[in-house]
Every structure is written in C-alpha cells, then in structure tokens.
C-alpha cells in the first residue's frame, strides 16, 4: 500500500508500511513528564484521526496495538551528539520522534567522533554546550512537530 515513509507537516504524523504488511505510524506527545508508559486516548485519537484524514481509505484498517514510552525531547528539538562532562561517556540522544528516520546518520556521526576523537563537522553544533552559549539549533519549525 505504501512504499515510502510519509510525513505530514500539518499534523506531525508519520506513517510507513513494514515488510510484513503492518502500517506503523506515530506522532503526538503527552506534554507532561511521565514514567507510566501508558498512552493517552486523546493523543491516540489525534494521531489516528490524522492518519484517517490523510489516507481516507485506511478508515477501515484496524489498529492492532500501540506503543507508549518515553520520548527524549530537547529544548530546541535537535539531538545531543558528542562528549559529556564525564570523560569517556558520549551521548547520542534527544532525537525525539525523529530518531527512527535519522539515526543511521546519527550513528555514523558519533562513530566518527569515537574513532577520530573529534566531532564530525556536521555533528559539532549538536554539542550539549549549546545550551550555555546560546547556539541553539531550532528545528521546531523544520520538524513540524510540537516538541
């Protein structure tokens, strides 16, 4: 049915089809901290509603299950890649809901850092220190997602 990942800027919902046939889609957050891993009906309604609106023929396709867990969100909606204040500890996190699309590149960039001892030029701006210096990388508009 779908041989691409589609992603709507107006609803922030992404959808793709697995090789086994299932449709995988997501978007939306609870805007409060939680460790309950429970999921929220209002959010499910928003996300599913966006899928049904974008693809009207999916209206009769049925939702089998959903995932709920912790999304790592950073203030400027961009990941944290690089060294930490603790020597030898590196981080590659804060991808929010974008990680499943971009992490192959993220993994490559961090591997470069680990192998050479220096950040890859592309990854350098994603250092944790940007929150002190103010050199934020605001991807909120680019991401089209409210986080």
């Amino acid at each position, binding site marked *: 049915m779908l041989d691409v990942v589609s992603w709507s800027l107006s609803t922030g919902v992404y959808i793709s089809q697995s090789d086994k046939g299932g449709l995988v889609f997501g978007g939306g957050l609870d805007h409060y*901290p939680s460790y*309950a891993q429970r999921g*929220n009906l*209002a959010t499910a309604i928003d996300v599913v509603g966006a899928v049904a609106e974008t693809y009207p023929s999916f209206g009769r396709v049925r939702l089998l299950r959903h995932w709920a867990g912790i999304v790592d969100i950073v*203030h400027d909606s961009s990941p944290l890649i690089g060294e930490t204040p603790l020597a030898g500890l590196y981080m590659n996190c804060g991808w929010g809901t974008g990680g499943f699309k971009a992490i192959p590149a993220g993994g490559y960039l961090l591997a470069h850092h680990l192998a050479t001892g220096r950040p890859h030029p592309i990854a350098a701006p994603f250092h944790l220190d940007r*929150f*002190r210096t103010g050199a934020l990388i605001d991807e909120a508009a680019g991401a089209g997602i409210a986080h």
Partner: protein
Amino acid sequence: MLLINCPWCGPRDEIEFRCAGQSHIARPGPYDRVSDEEWARYLFYRKNPKGLHSERWLHDVGCRQWFNIARDTRTHEIKVIYAMTDPKPEESTP
C-alpha cells in the same frame, strides 16, 4: 486522560488543560548580574523525577487560570492542587 480538579471550574478532562512543566523556577536577576551558567540553568535545566513532580497547569479552554499540580509521574496520581503563589508542598516519601 487525567481528570483534573480545576480550583475554579471543578473536575474536567485533561484535554481542556495545558501543562507547562516544572513549577517553582525562580527567574534570576537582575539580568546584568546573572552568569551564562545560571541563565542556562534557569532556561533549560529541569527535574525529571520518577515520583512526585510539581508542575504548572493552565485551564486553557476553561477559566484560563494557572495553578500548580503535584503529581506522581509513575501513576499519574494527582496529590495536591494549589495556587501559583503557594509554596511547594512538603514532599513526603511516597
């Protein structure tokens, strides 16, 4: 799907509200005596407790009033609802 007891409107569904995260964050000042570190801490550093969390909520599509909620982030149980100007409630070990 929290049920939030708005101090002005009574119990209402979560979808009427908006959470703005951790409460009781003092705005440092005067601006010309605040270090970059202190300012960064104010802007970006937030608690993320597994347990009781004091946070600001707005009854967005109701009375439009802000208030504080002390909520357990593991169970979503709301322990206390209190005014913006009230002090943070004593933390009893849950």
